[in-house]
């Protein structure tokens, strides 16, 4: 065993290999046309949300009382709403509301869900029973009822929607994470890590978690879509953000009464919700296939 080779330059730990794993997944992902279209649309919505100030021709509160419920025209691409506000501008700003709620609520759900799922799956015993029974109880309560309760306490705002959806979303995440951990903790590399004196927290989050990322990423992506849908549902029910916040669900709710003579009021925000949610589902499906080694070369 010579020491001649030690002079080789040390590569950074995340070298070609780590990137090639992701490059591989990206190659696989690209083959899925629907997922690509979905990704394109999500990027489009994100850009819209970020640059809403530049894109929207009017502000969300500018009103032209004389032009109420007008159909789409050159001045107002999506028409105007009941009190004469530009619907296109409101849908553009709505992207910001939906994305903010979708991303924030899903982040909360993922962080809380991963922590509790990991504890339940890895430690087991009493901790597992306590966490899983708690989840069972909360899954038995419809989130709408929970939402109404929380909205009553915290007020009807974007933030209370984030809290509601974040704290109902983590239940599902925790179950998935627990299942992965139960399976992974029996693997020999976990046993080896224990035998070499690694601490519990380190084993859970540095060794097992990276191996469990695939289902979490897929679930998280689809969850952003379904969170946006839930947000729309809550807004529609009136327990979400209030006017003049341009929430898509709220706009659909307001347009409902004029469906017969001004269908555009419901159509455009409704379309925005449907397309955005669908895009996230497509991307989630694409990621599932791309990250699952067993589905390679199908």
């Amino acid at each position, binding site marked *: 065993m010579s020491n001649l080779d030690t002079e080789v330059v040390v*590569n950074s730990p995340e070298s070609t290999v780590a990137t090639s794993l992701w490059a591989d997944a990206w190659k696989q992902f690209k083959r899925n046309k629907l997922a690509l279209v979905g990704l394109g649309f999500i990027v489009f919505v994100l850009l819209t949300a970020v640059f809403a100030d530049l894109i929207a021709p009017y502000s969300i509160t500018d009103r032209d009382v004389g032009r109420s419920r007008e159909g789409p025209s050159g001045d107002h691409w999506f028409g105007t709403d009941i009190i004469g506000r530009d619907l296109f501008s409101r849908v553009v700003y709505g992207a910001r509301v939906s994305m903010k709620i979708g991303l924030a609520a899903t982040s909360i759900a993922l962080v809380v869900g991963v922590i509790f799922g990991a504890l339940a799956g890895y430690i087991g015993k009493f901790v597992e029973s306590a966490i899983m029974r708690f989840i069972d109880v909360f899954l038995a309560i419809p989130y709408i009822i929970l939402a109404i309760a929380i909205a009553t306490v915290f007020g009807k705002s974007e933030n209370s929607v984030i809290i509601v959806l974040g704290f109902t979303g983590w239940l599902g995440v925790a179950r998935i994470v627990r299942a992965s951990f139960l399976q992974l903790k029996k693997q020999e590399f976990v046993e080896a890590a224990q*035998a*070499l*004196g690694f601490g519990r927290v380190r084993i859970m989050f540095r060794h097992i978690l990276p191996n469990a990322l695939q289902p979490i990423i897929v679930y998280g992506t689809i969850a952003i879509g379904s969170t946006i849908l839930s947000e729309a549902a809550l807004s529609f029910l009136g327990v979400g953000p209030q006017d003049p916040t341009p929430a898509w669900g709220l706009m659909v709710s307001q347009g409902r009464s004029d469906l017969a003579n001004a269908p555009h009021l419901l159509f455009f925000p409704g379309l925005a919700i449907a397309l955005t949610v669908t895009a996230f589902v497509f991307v989630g499906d694409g990621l599932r296939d791309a990250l699952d080694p067993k589905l390679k070369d199908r």
Partner: protein
Amino acid sequence: MTDQVSPGAPVAPKLASRHGSGSGEVLLSVRNLEAVFETGDGIVHAVDGITFDVHRGEIFAIVGESGSGKSVSAMTVMGLLPTIKVRSGEILWKGENLLDFDENRMRRIRGGEIAMIFQDPLTALNPVHTVGRQVAEMARIHDGLSKKDAMKRAIETLDLVGIPEPAKRAAMHPHEFSGGMRQRAMIAMAIMCKPDLLIADEPTTALDVTVQAQVLEVLVDIKDEIDSGIVLITHDLGVVAGLADQMMVMYAGNQVEFGTVDEIFYETAHPYTEGLLNSIPDLVGDHSKPLIPIKGSPPSLINRPSGCAFHPRCSYARVPGVCSEQEPKLRDEGQGHMSACHFTSVDWKPQ
């Protein structure tokens, strides 16, 4: 370093690495260890009263079939089996009973003072981290080294276990390593913190024969390099013959024979050990000699046979009689060579 080993050789050559028994200080001393699993079907007597010492500089082999309790014994020493109940006995590590240690203290022992090498290096390394990072992590948690220093030491250690271009290899993931290289990486991980004792649980079983020899050679070199002891758990008597100083044969959780490798190979005192030796091919001796397998299969550890656990499979058993009625005790056959048979080899061996 290397001039000694010819692993796999059926006849035990005297090796330069052999220190003989008792030359170094006693590191690990297991006294009358009895441990059971309580399952829904009954109590599994996984380890039933075993006693042995491991000295610094020594290779101590534990030999037995699958389910004989050899791995469970090692895992119990490490305190890694949450479901096992130690009923009696002591596990003395440098004079202190490991069974009294709390989890924090055990964690420092594991990896820091006693390190374990696993059977299947394919699954024992984390697939998502680079090999270098995994090896370096040992120094980070046990010796509190910085990321950079730990990586430097990891690369030195990978070099020590004979991984070519260690700096480049350190940045690779386990799946890019061959089986032998992975096992070397695993050994590197185990020796990062210069432990006093290495427990190698079937370290070469998952490797092909040519690689086995290389990995065993690394193991012996390392032992001398860091001046540790090794507990080698294996079912491969060829490996034992080539490497070990002392050995213990286990059957159904019992220690059936104990002694130096030479004594056990040349003056076999227990019919089970003889059965094991007869069932491996002899490469240098008489090729026409048929292999004699041990008939039957190992007993259930829940419903153990009465008397001597081996009597239903023993060709020399006196049934009905003492073999099926009384549990044999370990008996000294001379100079610490112990056997748990009612009869001395002179009595049972057909002459």
